[in-house]
């Protein structure tokens, strides 16, 4: 006997609609919370180890402020919002353009990181095992870059299925979650940038 069937429904509840928050929004919010905790540990470690390297190269000798990459990544937060707005209004052409722009800006950022690392490794001879600076630099920036890569993979996925004719307008929620994640990755970059390239130098 399922007693649930005989729980007397209260009339006012049946009339007024019962609303709870979107489960996807809750899920992605708390995913971001747990990622924040992870980054906090790496950032704290970076801060603790600033100036503790016993041998060079030191940050002030080899690090250059990545202005272009930073502009690209931060503006990609804007383009993804434009893309979302376009999708909201079902303007598929504009959506594709802005989405592609977001992906390209992310890729430029990654390319810059790649060039920077290549220079650091082959010219400045700084690797993860050279000193504490190398250890903390590559792990913090690498952790962030790996999040950008994950984001770029999902951006590409959305772009590919859209170009192949998948009705992406049916997936507005999921596009929104992806954009939340992308904003989070950008916000983390602001912290990483400040810690590594400003405080750390």
């Amino acid at each position, binding site marked *: 006997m399922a007693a649930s069937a005989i729980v007397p*429904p209260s009339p006012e509840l049946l009339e007024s609609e019962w609303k709870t928050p979107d489960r996807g929004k809750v899920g992605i919010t708390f995913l971001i919370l747990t990622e924040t*905790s992870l980054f906090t540990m790496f950032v704290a470690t970076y801060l603790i180890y600033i100036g503790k390297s016993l041998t060079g190269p030191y940050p002030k000798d080899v690090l250059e402020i990545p202005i272009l990459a930073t502009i690209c990544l931060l503006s990609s937060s804007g383009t993804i919002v434009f893309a979302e707005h376009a999708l909201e209004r079902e303007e598929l052409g504009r959506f594709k353009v802005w989405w592609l722009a977001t992906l390209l800006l992310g890729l430029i950022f990654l390319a810059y990181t790649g060039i920077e690392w290549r220079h650091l490794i082959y010219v400045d001879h700084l690797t993860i095992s050279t000193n504490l600076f190398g250890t903390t630099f590559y792990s913090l920036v690498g952790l962030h870059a790996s999040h950008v890569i994950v984001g770029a993979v999902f951006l590409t996925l959305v772009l590919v299925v859209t170009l192949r004719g998948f009705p992406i307008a049916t997936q507005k929620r999921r596009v929104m979650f992806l954009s939340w994640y992308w904003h989070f990755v950008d916000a983390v970059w602001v912290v990483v940038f400040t810690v590594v390239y400003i405080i750390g130098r």
Partner: protein
Amino acid sequence: MASIDYPLERPEAAPREFSFSESLYKWVATVDHKRLGLMYMVSALVFLVIAGIMASVMRLQLAVPNNHLVGPATFNRLFTMHGTTMVFLVGMPIVAGMANYLVPLMIGARDMAFPRLNAFGFWIFLFGGVLLYYSYLGGSGLSGAGSAPDVGWFAYAPLTEKAFSHGASTDFWALGVLVSGFGSIASAINVIATCVSLRCPGMTLARMPVFVWVMLVDAWLVLVVLPPLSAAQIMLLLDRFLGAHFFDTQFGGSAVLWQHMFWIFGHPEVYILIFPAFGTLSEVIPIFARKPIFGRPAMVGAVVAIGFISLGVWAHHMFAIGMTSWSNTFFAAASMLVGVPTGIKIFNWTATMYGGKIRFAVSMMFCCGFLLQFLVAGLTGIMLAIAPFDWQLHDSYFVVAHFHFTLIGGLVFGVFAGIYYWFPKVTGKMLSETLGKWHFWLFCIGFNLTFIPLHFAGMLGMPRRIYTYAAGRGWESWNTIATIGVFFQIAGIACFAWNVIQSVRSGKAAGDDPWDAWTLEWATTSPPPEYNFEKLPVVRSSRPLWDLKHPQDPDWKYD
């Protein structure tokens, strides 16, 4: 999101026998929260037995001085695997398992918010466990023989660095625990989204059962404090595989960084582990005292307060490393502060019983055992929070006795209370009360016989993790008594195992609501159907089934 216009007419499903491969497929491919919850619980109990056997071997080794049952290397592996297993492969899946099985039923939902993520969480957890135990076969690398990790469950770096910990066993420890942590995070996100988004109509946060509240705070705590452990393990793996220097003092790395990160995780972790027991007591005691829980808002507030305060107490595990006296004072004071909300909980459970029509079913007996033993654990905890006292007893058997009182006397007793309470719902069969009473008394006597003496051995200076000791220091009799207690505990667990087997085979049918309870899980059949509720319930108070059974005097009149 909850729809109340669910078709009531359902064709009666013809009962049919499944072949072995069919039912195996049903279990492996399931995304049903009840099956996943059960699989979590069963894996936890299997790991409990494995780690329990390890503990018994260690107790046998320590029963008499100068014993040579196992050597020092084996002993190190035993306590490492015992601790790691108990925390990550018993405690954590119990959290996930109880939340998975009960939360959707108690809030009137048909499943968790993300069923497939749920299945992913379980399998990745199990994979992590298997990976950890694989070290027994491949711990020294592919060509060498196996050996389990031997660095202690908190694996202090730099001891775990490549220079001091050869072979691959420490890698298995870090990877296995890291991977099973992903499962815990997946499950925690799921629990939060379920509690927030899938509550049935009328189930406001204020009406949510205390158990669900506790699991909600628990999941939040997992999300905040598990990543610090993951971060530390990632750094350790970078050190070991790529030659990084996070914990390498020769390159200027810190010898206490790992300790900080580990205990930022590790201390809240013990609250994560004990919370399911808190939740269980908050459900079981009212039912068997026939009174609504005393001070419901205070109970919920206390759990939230414990969640927050627990984030600022970690360094009380590190008084002995030589922190500044300001740090010592701060962490001592913060740790003692935890005693306030915990005290509120103990008092409120007691007040719930006060003046009630108490029925001492086995479940209730385990709750009473919990209250007394957890009180002792709390008091020794406050003693250890005092920094100078901790300097005396740090790393002694007093600490071992303290945390076994919280985790066995508290958590395990609470979980047994929960198992005796919810078993009828899960299986549709009653557990035998007679065998249950044997289980309770044998286990309770055995537990106290084992762990009360260890307080004294610790105060007499017996350090942790020693594999043997010389005679004549006054430790012998305490250790012998402790080992005798283990046999009582094993007998108790055997009673429990026999009870479960007997009940599943030929137990008394339970019916839907054997305890005359008040929360929604008792409103559906036992065991619940795959969809939980034919029609989503609508609730108007925190005790919907009380309202149903007492239409002349429902709770919502007073809310």
